[in-house]
């Protein structure tokens, strides 16, 4: 939980630990989600840039990675620079990604033959420095590979997102293995809020922060990305009428 009163001892200890971990002297830039309930619980007040993050889907989503792809696309959409997306099978549907704010002109896709080629392309993209975010669909991510990616991201300040996606649901237990990623997220779909008319409302996700370096894990129920890549707070939680909540991050 965030502290109401600043505690200098804790802050000093954190700085010392960061120094021991070989971290940089200056603070990293942060990409806030724009949802206070989420940003407030992250150690830096947002998603750290220049780091590797892991995202996976929950349940069926571990296989198709659809919600996880939207979550990653939303993050990539909220920073201004080009995005590299490395895949082994090209099943992303660009019109769908555009609807979460990732415009086709900004994304370069790399269709690599195998997992190793995907990781190598991702590392190349992270090292380059001209990109804002690099996303890669990967199944297995070893400690060594993730460490390389993390160091590459650290040197250039690019966000690296490893979108974990498996062929079988049983393989998804691999997500418990340790990696060098800064944060590890699981995005599972939830039933959308009932509408007063027949039809489907805005997607609703259970966003779990399973692991965060120097932070606590938590889970939160949020509404899926809107047309600018921002997540939304469900209306009953925000304690205000649904119309206003929808408009706050409405389609720009």
């Amino acid at each position: 939980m965030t502290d109401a009163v600043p505690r200098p001892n804790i802050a000093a200890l954190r700085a010392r630990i960061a120094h021991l971990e070989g971290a940089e002297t200056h603070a990293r830039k942060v990409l806030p989600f724009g949802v206070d309930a989420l940003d407030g619980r992250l150690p830096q007040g947002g998603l750290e840039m220049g780091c590797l993050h892991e995202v996976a889907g929950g349940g069926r989503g571990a296989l198709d990675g659809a919600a996880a792809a939207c979550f990653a696309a939303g993050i990539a959409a909220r920073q201004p620079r080009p995005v590299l997306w490395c895949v082994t099978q090209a099943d992303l549907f660009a019109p769908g990604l555009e609807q979460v704010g990732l415009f086709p002109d900004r994304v370069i896709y790399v269709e690599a033959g195998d997992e190793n080629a995907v990781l190598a392309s991702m590392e190349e993209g992270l090292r380059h420095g001209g990109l804002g975010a690099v996303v890669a669909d990967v199944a297995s991510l070893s400690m060594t590979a993730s460490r390389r990616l993390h160091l590459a991201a650290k040197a250039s300040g690019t966000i690296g997102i490893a979108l974990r996606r498996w062929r079988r649901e049983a393989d998804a237990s691999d997500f418990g293995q340790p990696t060098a990623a800064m944060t590890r997220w699981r995005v599972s779909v939830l039933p959308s809020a009932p509408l007063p008319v027949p039809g489907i409302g805005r997607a609703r996700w259970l966003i779990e922060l399973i692991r965060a370096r120097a932070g606590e894990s938590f889970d939160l129920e949020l509404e899926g990305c809107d047309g600018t890549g921002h997540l939304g707070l469900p209306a009953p939680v925000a304690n205000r009428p649904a119309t206003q909540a929808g408009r706050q991050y409405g389609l720009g």
Partner: protein
Amino acid sequence: MITAACELAIGQGLRIGMPVSKAQAMVPDLRIEAADPAADHQSLERLGLWLLQRIAPIVAVDPPDGVVIDVTGADHLHGGEEALLEMLLGRLTLSGITAHLAIADTWGAAHALARHHRKTKACIALPGSTASVLAPLPLAALRLPPATVAGLLDLGFATIGDLIDTPRAPLTLRFGPDLCRRLDQALGAVGEPIDPLRPEGLIEVRRSFAEPIGAAETIARSITRLVTDLCTALEARGEGARRLDLLCWRVDNRIETVRVGLAVAQRDPKRLTRLLCNKIPSIDPGFGIEIMTLTAALAEPLVPRQATTLLEQAPPDITDLVDMLSNRVGHRAVYRLAPVASDVPERSVTRIGALSPDQGIGWPGHWPRPSRLLPRPEPIDTMALMPDHPPNWISWRGIRYRVVRADGPERIFGEWWKRDAEAKAVRDYFCIEDEAGHRFWIFRAGDGEDATTGSHCWFIHGVFG
């Protein structure tokens, strides 16, 4: 004497080598053109140059009617050997050339297959199968003088297979050393270097080494020097390289080649060196490399541009990243997506080059679209009320989902101007959500009333996030 004839003429009974007067007697109004070997050779060289720029770094003219290409290390850039042959055959046919293509382990084998393998226009001999592929071919395929072929026929030899198993000494005694040399060249027992075609005005830099080199660091150092020289030469001509070929002559007379392509013309030594050095693991130095040459196979004028202004921040330059990735995974595998004006989902997206200018347009956003689209729609079991209700449940890959909420139908008509089969085709798309919140994009082929509009089977096409 007839030196060449079109297929139609051969169908009329004309043969190559037949006297012209006889041909004129057989076919009354025959059109005859005088043979012009010099012009043939020139146009063959032009074709060779075109191949050199597009296909592979080592290309040579094989007179009178052939071109030999060393595709080792270049085929993956075109998506494999089959794809390369198919692409090449298509492009040659488009430019009016009837070509027979073959890929084999050796020059001799490829030469024989291209000219005497009549079943297909393009054939590939798998590595190691040279002897078995060559065995049924006639003796004329071995590039021997006609007198030798006639002599061998008199002795009862008909195919190359007959020659392979025959003792060599009597043959050499009778026909001279040429016969066995040609046979060995075709089978790969003797190397046959290809003297690559080098057009005039090609920028080429070369380094010979006093001692053969082999270590990766040494190769990297030589590449750095070669690139520096090449960039100086390019700068003097105001050009930038689009394609670079690095040829390493080994002491055992083999050539290792590396080809890298660039998305835009470049002459920045650092960038070019890095691209070439990334390829060092693919160079097999064997017993050592004697000579290295670096050529700019394709060069374009490169005018200096103002890099930045103080007023606005320049967009990040990602051309070097695109080059690096293209040379690693092939230039077709690095792309951007752009909209196409089509309502059919799988046709609404097209691939464009990674460095194409911005399109500035997206897709119409009236309806939600899934983030993952299945490679092809998969059939599902459903229970649905016809004609325009979403299903009550669907069963996909053995799992049953009960539909709680749904949106639709979104009717998409077939593109009748493309195919006749689509003249009446209709798809009704629905977004559905099950109890757990999974959302799928499903459609019914047909409008639910008229059987001519589709099979009325249900398919799943995408998954929403």
